[in-house]
């Protein structure tokens, strides 16, 4: 194996470290790629103590989503949950906050209507159970969980108090002299009663045979009555059978009509079952809202910054178009102090020459396509009028950005034999103002320099509609 140079070893360490870092932050970050999937439902609770963002939402113990946000709404807590797109929640379901284990984390449990313990089997359930499922952004009714630990402890201590009271009064009754005497009386009475019962059973034993004989007689006369009316009974039975057969036929024809309607036969059937009209209206509405929401969603970020490179400085004007959260286009203009160069070679004596280069300030432009995954973004395109590539890493909910850009890969300038690589860290001080700093062109020792800069960045709403009014062919 060839011996690795110092540069190669360091490069390897940096690459392995960066990949490890990316994997760790991606694993821990629970990122959703692209736009957040699924739909949201909200619920109002009196108290959500212990419930945080990213807490799980479960149904029957199976995780079906996460808590996206918890906010205060009229001194109650509104919990916004993001659910998996293919989980449907039946109307009549309720949300409760439950605890996993004794010290475990809190989570939101959605209880379907057929398992709600507070509804009795009959009419109440029928009234609650409307057909269909919850639509996105609706509010689910919330109940206090019966298995709340605090409540359980409260109930238990209440029960213990009751028991104590009962035993206390029992002690009062039995513990005193009078209590003991009355207990004695009760036992006495009980003994007398038992004796009476015994006497009664003995009497029954003696006169029992007579009772049985009377019963036998009654059964015999009943038999005779039935025998006399046998024919009448038969006719009535037949009538009943006929009636039920007719009812059956009527039901069958009703069913066949209903089935036809269901299948969409006949005018009524078409109206009821054919959903093509509904779908066409729906898709048209969707198409319109798709276009408007695309413009609505699009962000246009305007930026301006100046970077001081001791003693030179570079100014940038940039425009970012973000049609969706994770994809954007960057257009940037900058002045480059080393923009245009001119090489003059003076031959001093035959065979030897002196080459000098002069530079002129010049405008250059960048045009990049950027794609973002979680906290990392990759940019490709033109950087300062040559092909380039760049990467960004966002920290502290996008307040800070660390970027590396590389361009000008085949430069012919004497001082600039390697690619121009620039590392920048920038930090937003407020909503618009930011500062940055870094190392410019550090692969070319004669040109490398640190820089600090300051700039503005803001979301321009009007620009967006200006661009939006230009028809975009789909």
């Amino acid at each position, binding site marked *: 194996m060839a011996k690795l140079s110092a540069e190669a070893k360091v490069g390897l360490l940096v690459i392995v470290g960066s990949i490890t870092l990316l994997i*760790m932050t991606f694993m821990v970050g629970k990122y959703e790629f692209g736009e957040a999937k699924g739909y949201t439902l909200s619920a109002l609770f009196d108290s959500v103590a212990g419930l945080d963002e990213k807490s799980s939402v479960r149904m029957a113990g199976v995780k079906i989503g996460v808590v996206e946000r918890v906010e205060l709404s009229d001194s109650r807590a509104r919990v916004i949950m993001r659910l998996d797109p293919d989980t449907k929640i039946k109307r009549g379901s309720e949300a409760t906050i439950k605890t996993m284990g004794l010290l475990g984390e809190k989570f939101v449990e959605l209880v379907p209507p057929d398992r709600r313990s507070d509804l009795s089997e009959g009419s109440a359930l029928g009234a609650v159970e409307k057909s269909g499922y919850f639509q996105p952004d609706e509010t689910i009714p919330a109940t206090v969980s019966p298995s709340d630990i605090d409540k359980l402890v409260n109930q238990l201590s209440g029960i213990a108090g009751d028991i104590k009271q009962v035993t206390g009064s029992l002690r009062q009754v039995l513990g005193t002299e009078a209590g003991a005497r009355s207990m004695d009386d009760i036992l006495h009475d009980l003994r007398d009663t038992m004796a009476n019962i015994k006497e009664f059973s003995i009497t029954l034993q003696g006169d029992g045979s007579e009772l049985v004989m009377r019963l036998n007689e009654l059964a015999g006369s009943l038999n005779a009555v039935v025998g006399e009316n046998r024919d009448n009974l038969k006719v009535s039975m037949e009538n009943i059978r006929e009636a039920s057969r007719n009812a059956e036929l009527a039901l069958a024809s009703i069913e066949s009509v209903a089935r036809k309607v269901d299948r969409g036969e006949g005018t009524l059937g078409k109206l009821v079952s054919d959903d093509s009209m509904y779908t066409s209206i729906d898709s048209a509405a969707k198409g319109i809202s798709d276009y408007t929401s695309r413009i609505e969603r699009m962000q246009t970020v305007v930026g301006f910054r100046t970077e001081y490179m001791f003693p030179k400085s570079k100014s940038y004007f940039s425009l970012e178009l973000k049609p969706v959260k994770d994809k954007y286009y960057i257009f940037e203009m900058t002045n480059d102090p080393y923009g245009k160069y001119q090489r003059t070679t003076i031959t001093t004596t035959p065979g030897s020459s002196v080459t000098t280069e002069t530079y002129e300030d010049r405008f250059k432009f960048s045009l990049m396509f950027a794609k973002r995954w979680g906290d990392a973004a990759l940019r490709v395109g033109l950087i300062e009028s040559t092909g380039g590539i760049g990467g960004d890493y966002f920290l502290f909910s996008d307040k800070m950005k660390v970027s590396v850009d590389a361009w000008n890969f085949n430069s012919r300038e004497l001082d600039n034999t390697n690619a121009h690589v620039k590392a920048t860290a920038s930090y937003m001080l407020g909503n618009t103002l930011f500062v940055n700093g870094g190392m410019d062109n550090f692969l070319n*020792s004669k040109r490398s*320099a640190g820089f600090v800069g300051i700039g503005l960045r803001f979301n321009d709403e009007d620009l967006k509609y200006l661009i939006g009014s230009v028809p975009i062919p789909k």
Partner: protein
Amino acid sequence: MTRLLEILGRKTLDVVTEIGRVLMFLGQTLRATISGPFYVRNLFKQMEQIGVNSIPVVLTTALSTGMVLALQSYTGFKRFGAESLIGTVVSLSMTRELGPVLTGLMVAGRAGASMAAELGTMKVTEQIDAMETLATSPMKYLVVPRFVASTIMMFFLTVLGMLIGISGGYFVGVKVLGTNPVTYVNQSIDNTEVSDIWYGLIKALVFGAVVGLIGCYKGFNTEGGAEGVGKATTGAVVVSCMLILILDYFLSALLW
């Protein structure tokens, strides 16, 4: 009595002067860092010295720490049936605290010492003065590459240390002690935030800067031959380790 006061006063003044000198040295270093020329080859050489060659030491320390952490927290948590929290303890302490601090201490011991010894020897043999007469700034040629290299390399070494420490904890927790692997991983991931990792790495950057700065400072201020070099080396290790531990508290409080 007055002698005692004098001694106390002199010691205090010494400490304050030393702090001032270190801060001035930091200022000079930063100024030299942002203005060219930049010695790229030297930087890479130092990165190899400080970073690549420290990998075995750092990884061994991180691995054993992660394993011990899992083992110790197991005995504690088992008493109240919370074994599932081992993963959380290991990953949180590796990312927030032990990853950067242990890496910092190991690099201070390994690279900080060698920095001070190397520069100290150059100082007592007057190589640094010679460099100055050749119109090469020793700050830019010697200090800046070491300072920058130790800052950047500490970052990447800490990333690897975190990963290896957490893996060691997983190995002990799951394979040796037999806790549920899925619970272990879920608990680790659910309770660790991206910000925990970044707070640890900000610490690592600061510790890297401390090791590079103190190593170079002690080397540059070496006096008195071979004995002085020895003293400078010891001083560099002791001071940078203490600074790492002290700054660790303040950074933890600040970044909470």
